[in-house]
């Protein structure tokens, strides 16, 4: 079912709140993975505020849909969702990265409610997600496992071990998403390690692969709907995104993979986010 305009605007508003929260958290932490957090936040917003079956009162609910943030360095983005859902205290965000905090760059599943796996060493998440998907089949549960990978992460051989197994097993209760923000720590992906033809690689590993605008809720939602309907092949949704989306001085610049934000930059970032949000909502209202 297509998302209504009201729902789309609600998602835009939620994503805007979360983006502001990301900038605020990076500001309080002194620095953080701003670029990759902002590129993936729309997809994660859609998952947590529309697609995923979760219990806000019980992050450990056994029937819940699972989410594995394989690009674990985007924890500073994911954590804003967990705070908004009430899994952690919103005030805790101000302790991010500080000594003694339960919140560090790579979220610890044993300490942060709502985190289904501790990730950070890249290339691990898809295997863990596949294990959860296989467990669902073995235990007769119908939850869906979503796994979000970074594009640079796909340099890791272990990603392709997991992809081969997912394709080979036709594990359709696992949905793979890749945040294709075209940049990694040292540069643009195609300069550091060529990924293209990226969609073809996933197709070759036995996936129904789609590429969509990763900042378009309607498009991502349609892709997920299509993925869930496929019973013959597992799906990979490549989210074409902009690293640092919404913050004009960071957008599209690989150097904002990780960076520091002072008060002045935080103000500029928020100003930019307001403009970005207004334009997105206006586009929806005009449509």
């Amino acid at each position: 079912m297509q998302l209504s305009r009201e729902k789309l605007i609600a998602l835009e508003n939620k994503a805007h709140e979360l983006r502001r929260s990301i900038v605020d958290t990076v500001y309080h932490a002194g620095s953080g993975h701003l670029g990759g957090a902002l590129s993936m936040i729309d997809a994660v917003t859609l998952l947590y505020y529309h697609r995923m079956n979760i219990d806000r009162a019980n992050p450990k609910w056994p029937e819940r849909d699972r989410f594995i943030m394989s690009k674990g360095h985007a924890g500073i983005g994911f954590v804003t969702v967990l705070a908004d859902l009430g899994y952690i205290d919103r005030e805790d965000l101000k302790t991010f990265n500080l000594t003694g905090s339960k919140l560090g760059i790579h979220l610890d599943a044993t300490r942060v409610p709502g985190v289904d796996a501790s990730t950070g060493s890249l290339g691990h998440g898809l295997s863990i997600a596949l294990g959860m998907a296989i467990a669902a089949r073995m235990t007769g549960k119908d939850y869906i496992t979503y796994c979000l990978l970074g594009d640079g992460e796909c340099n890791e051989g272990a990603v392709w071990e997991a992809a081969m197994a997912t394709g080979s097993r036709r594990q359709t209760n696992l949905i793979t998403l890749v945040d294709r923000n075209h940049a990694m720590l040292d540069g643009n992906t195609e300069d550091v390690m060529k990924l293209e033809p990226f969609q073809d690689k996933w197709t070759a590993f036995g996936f129904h692969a789609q590429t969509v605008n990763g900042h378009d809720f309607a498009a991502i939602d349609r892709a997920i709907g299509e993925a869930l309907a496929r019973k013959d092949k597992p799906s990979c949704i490549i989210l074409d995104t902009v690293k640092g989306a919404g913050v004009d001085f960071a957008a599209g610049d690989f150097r904002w993979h990780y960076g520091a934000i002072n008060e002045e930059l935080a103000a500029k970032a928020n100003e930019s986010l307001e403009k970005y949000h207004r334009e997105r909502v206006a586009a929806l209202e005009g449509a």
Partner: protein
Amino acid sequence: MGIAYTSLDTTKLSTAEVYAHTLCEIAQEDPRIVTLTADLAKSTKIGVFQEKFPERFVNLGIAEQNMFGIAAGMAACGLIPFTCTFAIFNSCRALDQVHTDICYQNLNVKMIASHAGTSFGQAGSTHHATEDIAIMRTMANLVVLVPADGQEAAAAVRAAIEHQGPVYIRINRGFDQVVYPQGIEDFQIGKANLLKDGSDLCFIVCGSAVFSALQAARELEAEGIKARVLDMHSIKPLDKETIRKAVHDTRRIITAEDHTVVGGLGGAVAEVIAESGMGCAFRRLGIQDTFSPIGYHEDLMSIHGIDTNGLITAAREALKMDFEEDDDWADEV
């Protein structure tokens, strides 16, 4: 759990077959138990489980990293996955997944690490696992068990299931010499088995070196030398109290393991002795910081001085070291 594998079975079944049959019996009652391998169902004998419970068995092909990650995901969903691959791949190839996905998250994955030490001697150092004890005992949350024979491997599997958290069980390829003909009544994680008492020296051993130590102790006895034998099957947690008592009682400690002398059982025992403040004669037998030559397991045990003769020789040397019989250590260190 009424499992009854006898010493007769262990002469007919390899150590791996004994653990696999044990696992099948427990799995009949416990639906949480599932198994995974990376194209080593035959070699690790987990194929025995596959035949009985095909729907609870996953073969990931030759991709160990993926297998351990998947096991972590399964454990996070309430299953008790047993991974079955060679010890070298468990401890080296897939260590990042073992460390981060399993140990860091304290997930209930049980790792059967087979073909340990030089038990697959002919295969060369690509397949020997001679560093795994040292590596695995550094992993927080992880229990490390090194059974001596099929009976003890079965006991280790049972104990591992009862333990909540990750466990590494190191077993050999093929048949082990029988150490426990009557089976094991009281196998406890963190508690050494006293196989033979003695006051002149103490062999602290694990895995295939346990049989060597028992034989050596029997032969030494004929010379009037009373050697204590401790089967230190639980490398982590380590039975420190029993080690300290052995130092106190015998003042001559010899460790032996089918593993490098760097950081394994010998290293672990050395740490306990050093921290105890007690001095003693101390020898670590094992692979002397080298890659082992190829060969049959028995021959390699002899080359590395961890067969019966090697232990007897080491015992005689240790006995030449003189220690006072009082409890006053101050004048000796």
